[in-house]
């Protein structure tokens, strides 16, 4: 009896080792370094005032930090919600049969294969004031020169940023929700229909609770990504005040080394805040699951 058990333990630890190693070394190590630097430990710049909370204080007492945090959360939340509202009906449609379904199921996944940077470049080429649409509008005489075109990119409304996030994440969410839908089959929905439930009632009382695990995991992943993303807000954003990852990068690029430590403080603050939000989200979801008796 002993050998198989030991063997099982060994196998289990071997299976978990790569992930544990990555987490401990790459993620844990980087996080520790970030926290140490944010608290004044950077002997390679000739700075060592550890432990020192002045960088956090400087950041948290500045109005610009809170504006930046607000912008970061605004872009992340709005993009996640828009993508979700588009993904749910799409996933529901995809379990039905219709002509051309095979082709369409392939097509909607295309953005998943294209990197974010390419999406950003597409946004610049199409939506920018020097982009296709603005030049076309100038060419047909709607406006005098392309510069007068409606500003979509590089504003603090962040339509360009949100567009790129939605473009990339809507297929991902659809895929996640669709997978859940296939797993549960259509039996319960058909049963509800036989018992006289209308379409809206079936969706709200049967389908939505069933796909909720898919919705929660997909929105969790997308929101976490959006909060920490750098390229889209950097290239498509409206300049100062920037989102927090961009703020951190700017501090990091500053010739003034004390600013680099403030940049680390910005990164750590962002990690703390997004960690808190995601944990709260999960707790609320668990409560719900317990309430409906699924866990």
């Amino acid at each position, binding site marked *: 009896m002993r050998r198989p058990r030991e063997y099982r333990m060994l196998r289990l630890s071997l299976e978990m080792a790569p992930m544990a190693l990555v987490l401990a070394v790459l993620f844990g190590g980087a996080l520790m370094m970030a926290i140490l630097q944010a608290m004044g430990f950077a002997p*390679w710049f000739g700075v060592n005032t550890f432990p020192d909370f002045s960088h956090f204080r400087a950041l948290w007492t500045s109005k610009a930090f809170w504006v930046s945090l607000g912008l970061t959360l605004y872009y992340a939340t709005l993009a996640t919600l828009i993508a979700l509202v588009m993904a749910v009906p799409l996933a529901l449609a995809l379990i039905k049969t219709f002509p051309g379904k095979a082709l369409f199921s392939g097509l909607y996944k295309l953005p998943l294969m294209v990197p974010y940077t390419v999406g950003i470049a597409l946004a610049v080429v199409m939506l920018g*004031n*020097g982009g296709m649409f603005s030049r076309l509008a100038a060419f047909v005489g709607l406006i005098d020169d392309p*510069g007068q075109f409606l500003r979509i990119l590089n504003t603090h409304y962040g339509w360009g940023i949100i567009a790129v996030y939605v473009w990339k994440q809507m297929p991902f969410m659809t895929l996640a929700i669709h997978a859940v839908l296939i797993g549960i089959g259509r039996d319960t929905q058909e049963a509800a229909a036989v018992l006289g439930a209308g379409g809206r009632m079936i969706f709200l009382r049967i389908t939505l609770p069933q796909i909720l695990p898919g919705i929660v995991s997909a929105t969790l992943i997308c929101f976490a990504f959006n909060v920490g993303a750098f390229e889209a807000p950097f290239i498509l954003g409206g*300049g100062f005040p920037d989102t927090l990852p961009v703020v951190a990068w700017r501090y990091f690029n500053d010739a*003034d080394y004390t600013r680099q430590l403030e940049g680390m403080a910005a990164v750590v603050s962002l990690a703390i805040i997004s960690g808190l939000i995601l944990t709260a989200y999960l707790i609320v979801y668990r409560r719900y699951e317990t309430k409906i008796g699924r866990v």
Partner: protein
Amino acid sequence: MRRAALGLVAAPALAFAAAASAGEAEHEFRADFLDGTLQWSEVEQRAREEGSVNFYFWGGDDSLNVWMDRVVTPALDQEGISFNPVRITGTKDAVDLVLAELNAGKRIGAGSVDVVWVNGENFAALKRQDALFGPFAQLLPNAENLEWSSDDPRSVLNLRDFGVETLGQEMPWSSEQYVCAVNRARVDEAGTPSTFAALRAYLEENPGKFTYVKPPHYIGNTFVQEAIYAHNPDGTGAEAFQAPLEEIGASELARLIGPGLEYLKNLEPLLLGAEGGAGPHYPEDIAALEGFFLNGQIDFACKFGLYGVATGLAKGTYPEKAEAFIFPEGYMIKNKSYLAIPANAPNPAAALVLINYMTSLEAQISKLEHVGLPAGIDPWLLAPQERRVLEEAAPGHIGVEQAELDENAAPDANATLVDVIEAAWLEYIERDSSRTIADIVAEAVENLPR
């Protein structure tokens, strides 16, 4: 557990000892070369043994990148050296790398940067941290292409880099002047501003038709410096900014830069994208600025580019009717950029051979012809025939004459001031701080790395 901990301590120590012994040969080579006891042929011999050279440079110019691959690589192959161009987005990356490696105990022979294209505050940072190879420039065979005698006032561009003495620790490679271009399809000669006041008047008539690259990008820093020169309250222009920070002092500097920053702050509502109360849109780099210019969103674009209009037209990155113009009168910053060798260069002999090649007449001519980067060597030291070839290789000026450009040239501000001016712009203009300029400058001076 304890053994493991011991291993953790011992491993870097052993590695360090190994690196130190490997560095001895390089140490000796450096000492011999700087003494002048080595023949150039011995340097070339050693360079062949080293076999490769890592050149770190700003990789944002396609034609320069192509030139490196098509011209420099084969030229160094002939010397028996494999040329490794490392394109970086900002020179500060290379400076940070060198300083980090030095702090990690990687001395000569053990670093990763052999040569870096540098000037201004980046050179000053390397020099301040004692991170340079040594006074090599005048020992290179091609040093004869440059004026080193301080009796000739024209030598100042070789001897001082942003007011900091070069001491032969970097070799002039390229020269540049900050030139603005105008889109003649939109603005005629009479309407073209030549002073900051005229620019403001133009923008009041045509709001949103101008912007400049955002500091801390050096293209943006330079525009800010020109505005500060032109608004110098004493009327002494660039002169007041030649001394180092320690000499000027924070409060005096704040007084000198105040009116310029004030002008730029008041200009903000007239810049691109600021209509309707939104913040102005400052491009992050030259490519973005030129995109606005090409697209007719702005009427003027300023950057370092003596031949910028000619090359921009050739590449199609400038609008068809683009011309250079004199702006701001008397304050068009002109400087040289240099090649420096870090103190921990892994291949110091190959680095010397590369720099010597880069300052040869042949390389300077082909760089001028293919890239449009003005010569770093001094034409008056060349034979008349050579000088003519160099002149003919230049892409030429459009809309301005060389004499006008020379008349309106101004030097850079001292490198020690650049970081402070940059920090003041970021705080006073970008972050829209309500504190006084004196406060901001005092804090920026306080925070400078020492």
